Protein backbone atom coordinates (compact mmCIF):
# COMPACT_ATOMS: atom_id res chain seq x y z
CA UNK A 1 0.00 0.00 0.00
CA UNK A 2 1.32 3.43 -0.95
CA UNK A 3 1.48 6.31 1.53
CA UNK A 4 -2.07 7.06 2.63
CA UNK A 5 -3.93 10.20 1.59
CA UNK A 6 -6.14 9.87 4.59
CA UNK A 7 -5.54 8.14 7.84
CA UNK A 8 -8.22 8.04 10.51
CA UNK A 9 -7.19 6.62 13.84
CA UNK A 10 -9.49 5.37 16.60
CA UNK A 11 -12.23 7.84 15.78
CA UNK A 12 -14.90 8.29 18.45
CA UNK A 13 -17.98 10.45 17.99
CA UNK A 14 -20.75 10.69 20.57
CA UNK A 15 -24.11 12.42 20.40
CA UNK A 16 -24.89 12.91 24.08
CA UNK A 17 -24.73 9.41 25.51
CA UNK A 18 -25.12 7.73 22.13
CA UNK A 19 -21.88 6.48 20.59
CA UNK A 20 -22.18 6.94 16.83
CA UNK A 21 -18.58 5.97 16.05
CA UNK A 22 -16.65 3.77 18.42
CA UNK A 23 -12.93 3.78 17.70
CA UNK A 24 -12.97 3.42 13.92
CA UNK A 25 -9.71 3.20 11.93
CA UNK A 26 -9.73 4.02 8.25
CA UNK A 27 -7.05 4.63 5.70
CA UNK A 28 -7.21 5.58 2.06
CA UNK A 29 -4.21 5.15 -0.23
CA UNK A 30 -3.18 7.69 -2.83
CA UNK A 31 -5.53 7.44 -5.77
CA UNK A 32 -7.48 4.64 -4.15
CA UNK A 33 -11.18 3.88 -4.61
CA UNK A 34 -12.70 2.91 -1.31
CA UNK A 35 -16.27 1.79 -0.77
CA UNK A 36 -17.81 2.54 2.63
CA UNK A 37 -20.96 0.58 3.33
CA UNK A 38 -23.14 -0.31 6.28
CA UNK A 39 -26.79 -0.53 7.31
CA UNK A 40 -28.83 2.61 7.92
CA UNK A 41 -27.63 4.50 10.96
CA UNK A 42 -24.31 2.65 11.10
CA UNK A 43 -22.34 5.92 11.19
CA UNK A 44 -21.22 6.45 7.58
CA UNK A 45 -22.39 10.02 7.27
CA UNK A 46 -21.10 10.78 10.76
CA UNK A 47 -17.71 9.49 9.66
CA UNK A 48 -17.76 11.82 6.64
CA UNK A 49 -18.88 14.72 8.80
CA UNK A 50 -15.85 14.15 11.01
CA UNK A 51 -13.47 13.84 8.07
CA UNK A 52 -14.78 17.00 6.42
CA UNK A 53 -14.98 18.88 9.71
CA UNK A 54 -18.73 19.48 9.64
CA UNK A 55 -18.63 17.74 13.03
CA UNK A 56 -15.68 17.49 15.37
CA UNK A 57 -14.78 14.04 16.67
CA UNK A 58 -14.48 13.44 20.40
CA UNK A 59 -11.45 11.16 20.30
CA UNK A 60 -8.96 9.92 17.75
CA UNK A 61 -7.11 11.73 15.00
CA UNK A 62 -7.46 12.46 11.32
CA UNK A 63 -4.34 12.79 9.16
CA UNK A 64 -4.59 14.10 5.60
CA UNK A 65 -1.51 13.84 3.40
CA UNK A 66 0.69 13.73 6.48
CA UNK A 67 -0.96 16.67 8.25
CA UNK A 68 -3.05 16.40 11.37
CA UNK A 69 -6.35 18.03 10.46
CA UNK A 70 -8.31 16.80 13.49
CA UNK A 71 -9.02 20.30 14.84
CA UNK A 72 -8.90 22.16 11.56
CA UNK A 73 -11.92 24.18 10.38
CA UNK A 74 -13.86 22.60 7.50
CA UNK A 75 -12.98 25.33 5.01
CA UNK A 76 -9.28 24.79 5.63
CA UNK A 77 -9.67 21.07 5.03
CA UNK A 78 -11.43 21.77 1.77
CA UNK A 79 -8.62 24.10 0.77
CA UNK A 80 -6.10 21.35 1.50
CA UNK A 81 -8.01 19.04 -0.78
CA UNK A 82 -10.77 17.18 1.08
CA UNK A 83 -14.11 17.64 -0.66
CA UNK A 84 -17.44 16.01 0.03
CA UNK A 85 -20.93 15.82 -1.31
CA UNK A 86 -23.96 15.80 0.95
CA UNK A 87 -26.37 12.92 1.23
CA UNK A 88 -29.22 15.40 1.49
CA UNK A 89 -28.38 17.95 -1.22
CA UNK A 90 -27.48 21.39 0.09
CA UNK A 91 -27.43 23.63 -2.96
CA UNK A 92 -26.90 27.38 -2.56
CA UNK A 93 -30.52 28.01 -3.34
CA UNK A 94 -30.33 31.68 -4.23
CA UNK A 95 -27.70 31.01 -6.89
CA UNK A 96 -27.69 29.57 -10.36
CA UNK A 97 -26.02 26.22 -10.95
CA UNK A 98 -22.99 28.01 -12.37
CA UNK A 99 -22.72 30.33 -9.37
CA UNK A 100 -22.90 27.31 -7.08
CA UNK A 101 -19.62 26.16 -8.59
CA UNK A 102 -18.06 29.59 -8.42
CA UNK A 103 -18.06 29.39 -4.62
CA UNK A 104 -15.65 26.43 -4.30
CA UNK A 105 -13.64 27.64 -7.29
CA UNK A 106 -13.23 31.08 -5.74
CA UNK A 107 -12.65 29.90 -2.21
CA UNK A 108 -11.40 26.31 -1.97
CA UNK A 109 -9.37 26.23 -5.17
CA UNK A 110 -8.47 29.93 -5.35
CA UNK A 111 -4.78 29.50 -4.52
CA UNK A 112 -4.41 26.37 -6.59
CA UNK A 113 -6.07 27.73 -9.69
CA UNK A 114 -3.73 27.76 -12.65
CA UNK A 115 -5.65 30.59 -14.18
CA UNK A 116 -8.57 32.57 -12.89
CA UNK A 117 -11.13 32.07 -15.59
CA UNK A 118 -13.68 30.96 -13.03
CA UNK A 119 -16.59 30.78 -15.45
CA UNK A 120 -14.67 28.62 -17.93
CA UNK A 121 -13.58 26.27 -15.19
CA UNK A 122 -17.08 26.03 -13.79
CA UNK A 123 -18.46 25.28 -17.24
CA UNK A 124 -15.83 22.59 -17.74
CA UNK A 125 -16.90 20.87 -14.52
CA UNK A 126 -20.56 21.17 -15.47
CA UNK A 127 -19.81 19.73 -18.88
CA UNK A 128 -17.98 16.75 -17.39
CA UNK A 129 -20.92 15.99 -15.15
CA UNK A 130 -23.65 16.62 -17.70
CA UNK A 131 -25.16 19.73 -16.17
CA UNK A 132 -24.05 22.24 -18.76
CA UNK A 133 -27.56 22.70 -20.12
CA UNK A 134 -28.83 24.09 -16.80
CA UNK A 135 -25.84 26.29 -15.93
CA UNK A 136 -27.97 29.44 -15.82
CA UNK A 137 -30.90 27.80 -14.08
CA UNK A 138 -31.65 28.51 -10.45
CA UNK A 139 -30.34 25.63 -8.36
CA UNK A 140 -33.43 25.46 -6.14
CA UNK A 141 -35.54 24.31 -9.07
CA UNK A 142 -33.41 21.36 -10.15
CA UNK A 143 -34.75 17.82 -10.41
CA UNK A 144 -33.62 15.28 -7.86
CA UNK A 145 -31.09 13.79 -10.28
CA UNK A 146 -29.60 17.12 -11.26
CA UNK A 147 -29.51 18.18 -7.62
CA UNK A 148 -27.34 15.15 -6.84
CA UNK A 149 -25.14 15.89 -9.81
CA UNK A 150 -24.76 19.45 -8.59
CA UNK A 151 -23.62 18.11 -5.21
CA UNK A 152 -20.85 16.18 -6.96
CA UNK A 153 -20.04 19.02 -9.32
CA UNK A 154 -19.60 21.44 -6.44
CA UNK A 155 -17.30 19.01 -4.66
CA UNK A 156 -15.28 18.56 -7.87
CA UNK A 157 -15.00 22.30 -8.33
CA UNK A 158 -13.02 22.41 -5.08
CA UNK A 159 -10.32 20.45 -6.97
CA UNK A 160 -9.95 17.82 -4.28
CA UNK A 161 -7.20 15.29 -3.63
CA UNK A 162 -9.77 13.20 -1.81
CA UNK A 163 -13.44 13.16 -2.72
CA UNK A 164 -16.05 11.73 -0.40
CA UNK A 165 -19.32 11.00 -2.10
CA UNK A 166 -22.19 10.40 0.31
CA UNK A 167 -24.90 8.43 -1.48
CA UNK A 168 -24.67 10.40 -4.68
CA UNK A 169 -26.70 7.72 -6.43
CA UNK A 170 -29.64 7.23 -4.09
CA UNK A 171 -32.90 7.29 -6.00
CA UNK A 172 -31.28 7.33 -9.44
CA UNK A 173 -32.12 5.00 -12.32
CA UNK A 174 -29.69 2.34 -13.50
CA UNK A 175 -28.51 4.45 -16.40
CA UNK A 176 -27.99 7.44 -14.16
CA UNK A 177 -26.05 5.34 -11.65
CA UNK A 178 -23.74 4.25 -14.46
CA UNK A 179 -23.35 7.87 -15.51
CA UNK A 180 -22.22 8.91 -12.03
CA UNK A 181 -19.94 5.86 -11.81
CA UNK A 182 -18.22 6.94 -15.00
CA UNK A 183 -17.73 10.43 -13.62
CA UNK A 184 -16.17 9.11 -10.43
CA UNK A 185 -13.96 6.66 -12.32
CA UNK A 186 -12.75 9.39 -14.65
CA UNK A 187 -11.95 11.60 -11.69
CA UNK A 188 -10.09 8.75 -10.03
CA UNK A 189 -8.03 8.24 -13.19
CA UNK A 190 -6.72 11.77 -12.71
CA UNK A 191 -5.27 10.66 -9.39
CA UNK A 192 -8.02 11.72 -6.99
CA UNK A 193 -8.74 9.26 -4.20
CA UNK A 194 -12.44 8.57 -3.71
CA UNK A 195 -14.47 7.30 -0.78
CA UNK A 196 -17.85 6.18 -2.03
CA UNK A 197 -20.71 5.67 0.38
CA UNK A 198 -23.52 3.82 -1.29
CA UNK A 199 -26.35 1.42 -0.65
CA UNK A 200 -26.45 0.30 -4.28
CA UNK A 201 -24.27 -2.82 -4.05
CA UNK A 202 -23.82 -3.19 -7.79
CA UNK A 203 -22.21 0.24 -7.90
CA UNK A 204 -20.06 -0.31 -4.81
CA UNK A 205 -18.78 -3.64 -6.06
CA UNK A 206 -17.98 -2.33 -9.50
CA UNK A 207 -16.31 0.83 -8.28
CA UNK A 208 -14.34 -0.12 -5.18
CA UNK A 209 -10.87 -1.58 -4.99
CA UNK A 210 -11.44 -2.08 -1.29
CA UNK A 211 -14.56 -1.99 0.86
CA UNK A 212 -14.97 -1.09 4.52
CA UNK A 213 -18.12 -2.10 6.38
CA UNK A 214 -19.49 -0.18 9.34
CA UNK A 215 -22.13 -1.48 11.70
CA UNK A 216 -23.40 0.35 14.76
CA UNK A 217 -20.38 2.64 14.78
CA UNK A 218 -17.77 -0.08 14.48
CA UNK A 219 -15.77 -1.40 11.58
CA UNK A 220 -16.82 -5.02 11.17
CA UNK A 221 -15.10 -5.94 7.93
CA UNK A 222 -12.62 -4.73 5.36
CA UNK A 223 -11.40 -6.28 2.13
CA UNK A 224 -11.86 -6.60 -1.60
CA UNK A 225 -15.42 -6.54 -2.88
CA UNK A 226 -15.33 -10.30 -3.35
CA UNK A 227 -14.19 -10.92 0.19
CA UNK A 228 -16.87 -8.63 1.55
CA UNK A 229 -19.65 -10.37 -0.35
CA UNK A 230 -18.63 -13.67 1.17
CA UNK A 231 -18.09 -12.33 4.69
CA UNK A 232 -20.61 -13.88 7.14
CA UNK A 233 -20.39 -10.91 9.57
CA UNK A 234 -21.44 -8.52 6.83
CA UNK A 235 -24.36 -10.70 5.88
CA UNK A 236 -25.45 -10.82 9.52
CA UNK A 237 -25.20 -7.03 9.86
CA UNK A 238 -27.40 -6.49 6.83
CA UNK A 239 -29.91 -9.30 7.32
CA UNK A 240 -29.97 -9.48 11.12
CA UNK A 241 -29.37 -12.61 13.18
Amino acid at each position, binding site marked *: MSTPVLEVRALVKRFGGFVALNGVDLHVGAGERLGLIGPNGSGKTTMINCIS*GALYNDEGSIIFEGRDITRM*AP*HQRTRLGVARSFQIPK*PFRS*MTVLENLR*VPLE*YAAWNRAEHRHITDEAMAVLESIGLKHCAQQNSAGLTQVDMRKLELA*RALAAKPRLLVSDEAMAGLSNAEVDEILEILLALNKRGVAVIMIEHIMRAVMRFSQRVVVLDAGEKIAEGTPDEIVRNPDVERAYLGE
Partner: protein
Amino acid sequence: MKKISPFWIVVVAVIIAGLVFTSTVKNEYYFNAAYVVLQALLMAVAWNVLGGFTGYVNFGSAGFFAVGAYTAIALDKAFGLPLPLLILASGTVCGLIGLALGYLTLRLKGVYFAIATLAMAIVFETLVVNWAYVGGAKGAYILTPDSHLWFDSYIQMLFMVMLLLALAAIAVSRYLNSSRLGRGLAAIRDDEVAAECAGVPTLRLKLISATVMGVMMGVAGAPYPFFVTFVDPVSAFNLFIAVNSIAMPMIGGTAHWIGPVIGALLVGSLQEIITVTVSSELNILFVGLMLVGFITLAPQGIVGLVRKFRGRKP
Protein backbone atom coordinates in the same frame (compact mmCIF):
# COMPACT_ATOMS: atom_id res chain seq x y z
CA MET B 1 -12.56 47.00 -17.52
CA LYS B 2 -11.58 50.52 -18.42
CA LYS B 3 -15.11 51.75 -18.93
CA ILE B 4 -16.59 53.77 -16.08
CA SER B 5 -19.58 51.92 -14.77
CA PRO B 6 -22.97 53.68 -14.93
CA PHE B 7 -23.10 53.34 -11.16
CA TRP B 8 -20.36 55.91 -10.61
CA ILE B 9 -21.92 58.26 -13.13
CA VAL B 10 -25.16 58.09 -11.15
CA VAL B 11 -23.25 58.68 -7.90
CA VAL B 12 -21.59 61.80 -9.28
CA ALA B 13 -24.90 62.99 -10.75
CA VAL B 14 -26.62 62.56 -7.37
CA ILE B 15 -23.89 64.53 -5.61
CA ILE B 16 -24.21 67.35 -8.13
CA ALA B 17 -28.00 67.26 -7.82
CA GLY B 18 -27.60 67.48 -4.04
CA LEU B 19 -25.37 70.55 -4.36
CA VAL B 20 -27.80 72.19 -6.78
CA PHE B 21 -30.63 71.38 -4.37
CA THR B 22 -28.83 73.13 -1.51
CA SER B 23 -28.06 76.22 -3.54
CA THR B 24 -31.54 76.69 -5.04
CA VAL B 25 -34.09 75.50 -2.48
CA LYS B 26 -34.59 77.70 0.57
CA ASN B 27 -37.41 75.94 2.42
CA GLU B 28 -35.78 74.02 5.28
CA TYR B 29 -38.57 71.48 5.42
CA TYR B 30 -37.28 69.77 2.29
CA PHE B 31 -33.84 69.28 3.77
CA ASN B 32 -35.34 67.92 6.95
CA ALA B 33 -37.43 65.46 5.02
CA ALA B 34 -34.56 64.42 2.75
CA TYR B 35 -32.29 63.94 5.75
CA VAL B 36 -34.81 61.63 7.40
CA VAL B 37 -35.18 59.55 4.24
CA LEU B 38 -31.41 59.35 3.70
CA GLN B 39 -30.80 58.36 7.31
CA ALA B 40 -33.35 55.56 6.95
CA LEU B 41 -31.71 54.57 3.65
CA LEU B 42 -28.30 54.33 5.28
CA MET B 43 -29.73 52.19 8.09
CA ALA B 44 -31.53 49.95 5.60
CA VAL B 45 -28.39 49.44 3.50
CA ALA B 46 -26.47 48.67 6.70
CA TRP B 47 -29.04 46.18 7.98
CA ASN B 48 -29.08 44.44 4.64
CA VAL B 49 -25.34 43.68 4.69
CA LEU B 50 -25.82 41.28 7.58
CA GLY B 51 -29.54 40.55 7.29
CA GLY B 52 -29.94 40.33 3.53
CA PHE B 53 -26.57 39.26 2.16
CA THR B 54 -25.51 37.04 5.04
CA GLY B 55 -28.86 35.89 6.43
CA TYR B 56 -28.50 37.00 10.05
CA VAL B 57 -31.49 39.06 11.12
CA ASN B 58 -30.67 41.95 13.42
CA PHE B 59 -33.56 43.35 15.49
CA GLY B 60 -31.26 45.68 17.39
CA SER B 61 -30.57 48.30 14.70
CA ALA B 62 -31.87 51.06 16.94
CA GLY B 63 -29.24 50.08 19.51
CA PHE B 64 -26.42 50.58 17.01
CA PHE B 65 -27.94 53.84 15.81
CA ALA B 66 -28.32 55.15 19.35
CA VAL B 67 -24.81 54.14 20.39
CA GLY B 68 -23.60 56.06 17.33
CA ALA B 69 -25.61 59.10 18.38
CA TYR B 70 -24.54 58.94 22.02
CA THR B 71 -20.89 58.42 21.13
CA ALA B 72 -21.13 61.69 19.20
CA ILE B 73 -22.91 63.43 22.08
CA ALA B 74 -20.29 62.30 24.62
CA LEU B 75 -17.30 63.24 22.47
CA ASP B 76 -18.88 66.53 21.46
CA LYS B 77 -19.45 67.41 25.11
CA ALA B 78 -16.01 66.22 26.25
CA PHE B 79 -13.76 67.50 23.48
CA GLY B 80 -15.96 69.45 21.08
CA LEU B 81 -14.68 67.38 18.17
CA PRO B 82 -15.69 68.38 14.64
CA LEU B 83 -18.43 66.37 12.93
CA PRO B 84 -16.18 64.28 10.64
CA LEU B 85 -14.22 63.02 13.67
CA LEU B 86 -17.45 62.28 15.54
CA ILE B 87 -18.68 60.25 12.59
CA LEU B 88 -15.40 58.37 12.51
CA ALA B 89 -15.55 57.69 16.25
CA SER B 90 -19.17 56.49 16.16
CA GLY B 91 -18.36 54.24 13.22
CA THR B 92 -15.43 52.75 15.11
CA VAL B 93 -17.36 52.12 18.32
CA CYS B 94 -20.31 50.55 16.53
CA GLY B 95 -17.98 48.60 14.25
CA LEU B 96 -16.46 47.00 17.34
CA ILE B 97 -19.92 46.21 18.70
CA GLY B 98 -20.75 44.69 15.31
CA LEU B 99 -17.59 42.60 15.53
CA ALA B 100 -18.68 41.31 18.93
CA LEU B 101 -22.09 40.55 17.49
CA GLY B 102 -20.34 38.63 14.71
CA TYR B 103 -18.80 36.30 17.27
CA LEU B 104 -22.28 35.56 18.59
CA THR B 105 -23.08 33.92 15.25
CA LEU B 106 -20.75 31.12 16.30
CA ARG B 107 -23.27 29.99 18.87
CA LEU B 108 -26.56 31.56 17.82
CA LYS B 109 -28.44 31.08 14.59
CA GLY B 110 -31.81 32.08 13.24
CA VAL B 111 -34.35 33.33 15.71
CA TYR B 112 -31.96 32.97 18.67
CA PHE B 113 -29.52 35.34 17.04
CA ALA B 114 -32.32 37.81 16.33
CA ILE B 115 -33.41 37.74 19.97
CA ALA B 116 -29.81 38.25 21.11
CA THR B 117 -29.56 41.41 18.99
CA LEU B 118 -32.74 42.71 20.58
CA ALA B 119 -31.33 41.97 24.03
CA MET B 120 -28.11 43.77 23.09
CA ALA B 121 -30.06 46.91 22.18
CA ILE B 122 -31.91 46.77 25.50
CA VAL B 123 -28.63 46.45 27.40
CA PHE B 124 -27.25 49.54 25.65
CA GLU B 125 -30.42 51.47 26.32
CA THR B 126 -30.18 50.62 30.01
CA LEU B 127 -26.58 51.77 30.08
CA VAL B 128 -27.43 55.08 28.44
CA VAL B 129 -30.43 55.68 30.68
CA ASN B 130 -28.06 55.42 33.65
CA TRP B 131 -25.28 57.49 32.15
CA ALA B 132 -25.77 60.95 33.62
CA TYR B 133 -22.97 62.56 31.59
CA VAL B 134 -25.01 62.31 28.39
CA GLY B 135 -28.25 63.25 30.12
CA GLY B 136 -29.46 59.85 31.29
CA ALA B 137 -33.18 59.26 30.96
CA LYS B 138 -33.86 63.02 30.80
CA GLY B 139 -31.97 63.40 27.56
CA ALA B 140 -29.44 65.93 26.34
CA TYR B 141 -29.60 69.20 24.42
CA ILE B 142 -26.96 69.63 21.75
CA LEU B 143 -25.85 73.00 20.45
CA THR B 144 -25.57 73.19 16.72
CA PRO B 145 -22.16 74.56 15.74
CA ASP B 146 -22.16 78.00 14.15
CA SER B 147 -20.09 77.08 11.14
CA HIS B 148 -21.78 75.40 8.23
CA LEU B 149 -19.16 75.70 5.49
CA TRP B 150 -20.50 77.43 2.39
CA PHE B 151 -24.06 76.21 2.95
CA ASP B 152 -26.88 78.59 3.81
CA SER B 153 -27.83 76.72 6.94
CA TYR B 154 -26.65 73.89 9.15
CA ILE B 155 -29.43 71.56 8.04
CA GLN B 156 -28.33 71.98 4.43
CA MET B 157 -24.87 70.88 5.41
CA LEU B 158 -26.20 67.92 7.41
CA PHE B 159 -28.29 66.91 4.44
CA MET B 160 -25.19 66.90 2.25
CA VAL B 161 -23.20 64.94 4.86
CA MET B 162 -25.93 62.31 5.05
CA LEU B 163 -26.15 62.13 1.28
CA LEU B 164 -22.42 61.41 1.02
CA LEU B 165 -22.56 58.83 3.82
CA ALA B 166 -25.50 57.09 2.20
CA LEU B 167 -23.78 57.01 -1.19
CA ALA B 168 -20.61 55.62 0.39
CA ALA B 169 -22.63 52.91 2.13
CA ILE B 170 -24.37 52.01 -1.12
CA ALA B 171 -21.01 51.75 -2.88
CA VAL B 172 -19.65 49.44 -0.16
CA SER B 173 -22.81 47.35 -0.20
CA ARG B 174 -22.70 47.09 -3.98
CA TYR B 175 -19.10 45.95 -3.83
CA LEU B 176 -19.90 43.35 -1.16
CA ASN B 177 -22.85 42.10 -3.15
CA SER B 178 -21.12 41.60 -6.48
CA SER B 179 -17.66 40.46 -5.43
CA ARG B 180 -16.18 37.13 -4.47
CA LEU B 181 -16.81 38.19 -0.88
CA GLY B 182 -20.49 38.69 -1.66
CA ARG B 183 -20.77 35.21 -3.12
CA GLY B 184 -19.25 33.86 0.08
CA LEU B 185 -21.83 35.75 2.14
CA ALA B 186 -24.65 34.45 -0.05
CA ALA B 187 -23.33 30.91 0.38
CA ILE B 188 -23.44 31.41 4.17
CA ARG B 189 -27.01 32.65 3.94
CA ASP B 190 -28.07 29.71 1.80
CA ASP B 191 -26.32 26.98 3.78
CA GLU B 192 -23.56 27.59 6.26
CA VAL B 193 -22.28 24.01 6.45
CA ALA B 194 -22.18 23.66 2.68
CA ALA B 195 -20.39 27.02 2.50
CA GLU B 196 -17.68 25.87 4.91
CA CYS B 197 -17.27 22.64 2.98
CA ALA B 198 -16.88 24.66 -0.23
CA GLY B 199 -13.92 26.45 1.36
CA VAL B 200 -15.68 29.60 2.57
CA PRO B 201 -14.17 30.89 5.84
CA THR B 202 -17.62 31.50 7.27
CA LEU B 203 -16.59 32.99 10.61
CA ARG B 204 -14.27 35.54 9.05
CA LEU B 205 -16.90 36.56 6.51
CA LYS B 206 -19.60 36.87 9.16
CA LEU B 207 -17.28 39.03 11.25
CA ILE B 208 -16.61 41.28 8.28
CA SER B 209 -20.29 41.50 7.48
CA ALA B 210 -21.34 42.29 11.06
CA THR B 211 -18.57 44.86 11.45
CA VAL B 212 -19.49 46.65 8.23
CA MET B 213 -23.10 46.74 9.38
CA GLY B 214 -22.05 48.17 12.74
CA VAL B 215 -19.84 50.86 11.19
CA MET B 216 -22.63 51.98 8.84
CA MET B 217 -25.22 52.16 11.60
CA GLY B 218 -22.87 54.04 13.93
CA VAL B 219 -22.10 56.50 11.16
CA ALA B 220 -25.84 56.95 10.58
CA GLY B 221 -26.34 57.84 14.24
CA ALA B 222 -23.44 60.27 14.64
CA PRO B 223 -24.97 63.39 12.99
CA TYR B 224 -28.41 62.70 14.51
CA PRO B 225 -27.90 64.79 17.70
CA PHE B 226 -27.12 67.87 15.58
CA PHE B 227 -30.15 67.18 13.43
CA VAL B 228 -32.67 67.01 16.28
CA THR B 229 -30.68 69.07 18.88
CA PHE B 230 -32.39 67.12 21.67
CA VAL B 231 -31.76 63.40 22.17
CA ASP B 232 -33.18 61.15 24.85
CA PRO B 233 -33.01 57.36 25.05
CA VAL B 234 -36.63 56.99 23.95
CA SER B 235 -36.06 58.78 20.66
CA ALA B 236 -32.61 57.36 19.94
CA PHE B 237 -33.52 53.74 20.73
CA ASN B 238 -36.84 54.11 18.95
CA LEU B 239 -38.43 50.88 17.79
CA PHE B 240 -39.43 52.68 14.62
CA ILE B 241 -35.77 52.86 13.57
CA ALA B 242 -35.34 49.11 13.99
CA VAL B 243 -38.60 48.36 12.19
CA ASN B 244 -37.73 50.62 9.25
CA SER B 245 -34.26 49.09 8.95
CA ILE B 246 -35.81 45.67 8.48
CA ALA B 247 -38.91 46.67 6.54
CA MET B 248 -37.21 48.79 3.88
CA PRO B 249 -34.82 46.06 2.65
CA MET B 250 -37.60 43.45 2.85
CA ILE B 251 -39.88 45.61 0.74
CA GLY B 252 -37.15 46.51 -1.73
CA GLY B 253 -35.60 43.03 -1.85
CA THR B 254 -32.75 41.74 0.30
CA ALA B 255 -30.68 39.70 -2.15
CA HIS B 256 -29.55 42.62 -4.33
CA TRP B 257 -27.76 45.75 -3.18
CA ILE B 258 -30.33 47.96 -4.89
CA GLY B 259 -33.17 46.42 -2.84
CA PRO B 260 -32.76 48.44 0.37
CA VAL B 261 -32.14 51.58 -1.68
CA ILE B 262 -35.42 51.20 -3.55
CA GLY B 263 -37.26 50.18 -0.40
CA ALA B 264 -35.93 53.10 1.61
CA LEU B 265 -36.63 55.70 -1.07
CA LEU B 266 -40.15 54.39 -1.59
CA VAL B 267 -41.18 53.76 2.00
CA GLY B 268 -39.23 56.73 3.35
CA SER B 269 -40.84 59.18 0.91
CA LEU B 270 -44.32 57.78 1.51
CA GLN B 271 -43.75 58.13 5.25
CA GLU B 272 -42.83 61.76 4.83
CA ILE B 273 -45.95 62.36 2.77
CA ILE B 274 -48.14 60.60 5.34
CA THR B 275 -46.55 62.60 8.15
CA VAL B 276 -47.37 65.85 6.41
CA THR B 277 -50.81 64.99 5.08
CA VAL B 278 -52.20 62.70 7.79
CA SER B 279 -50.16 62.10 10.93
CA SER B 280 -46.86 60.65 12.04
CA GLU B 281 -48.64 58.08 14.21
CA LEU B 282 -50.00 56.38 11.11
CA ASN B 283 -46.48 55.73 9.83
CA ILE B 284 -45.72 52.65 11.86
CA LEU B 285 -49.08 51.15 10.96
CA PHE B 286 -48.42 51.88 7.33
CA VAL B 287 -44.98 50.25 7.40
CA GLY B 288 -46.38 47.27 9.24
CA LEU B 289 -49.11 46.72 6.68
CA MET B 290 -46.71 47.12 3.77
CA LEU B 291 -44.28 44.68 5.34
CA VAL B 292 -46.96 42.05 5.92
CA GLY B 293 -48.18 42.55 2.37
CA PHE B 294 -44.75 42.08 0.85
CA ILE B 295 -43.74 39.15 3.01
CA THR B 296 -46.88 37.24 2.05
CA LEU B 297 -47.24 38.31 -1.57
CA ALA B 298 -43.71 39.14 -2.73
CA PRO B 299 -41.12 37.71 -0.34
CA GLN B 300 -38.31 38.69 -2.73
CA GLY B 301 -39.39 42.32 -2.56
CA ILE B 302 -39.61 44.75 -5.43
CA VAL B 303 -36.36 43.48 -6.95
CA GLY B 304 -37.86 39.98 -6.98
CA LEU B 305 -41.03 41.26 -8.65
CA VAL B 306 -39.04 43.02 -11.35
CA ARG B 307 -36.99 39.88 -11.95
CA LYS B 308 -40.12 37.82 -12.24
CA PHE B 309 -41.63 40.12 -14.84
CA ARG B 310 -38.42 40.32 -16.79
CA GLY B 311 -38.08 36.56 -16.52
CA ARG B 312 -34.38 36.79 -15.77
CA LYS B 313 -31.83 38.34 -13.50
CA PRO B 314 -31.21 42.08 -13.79
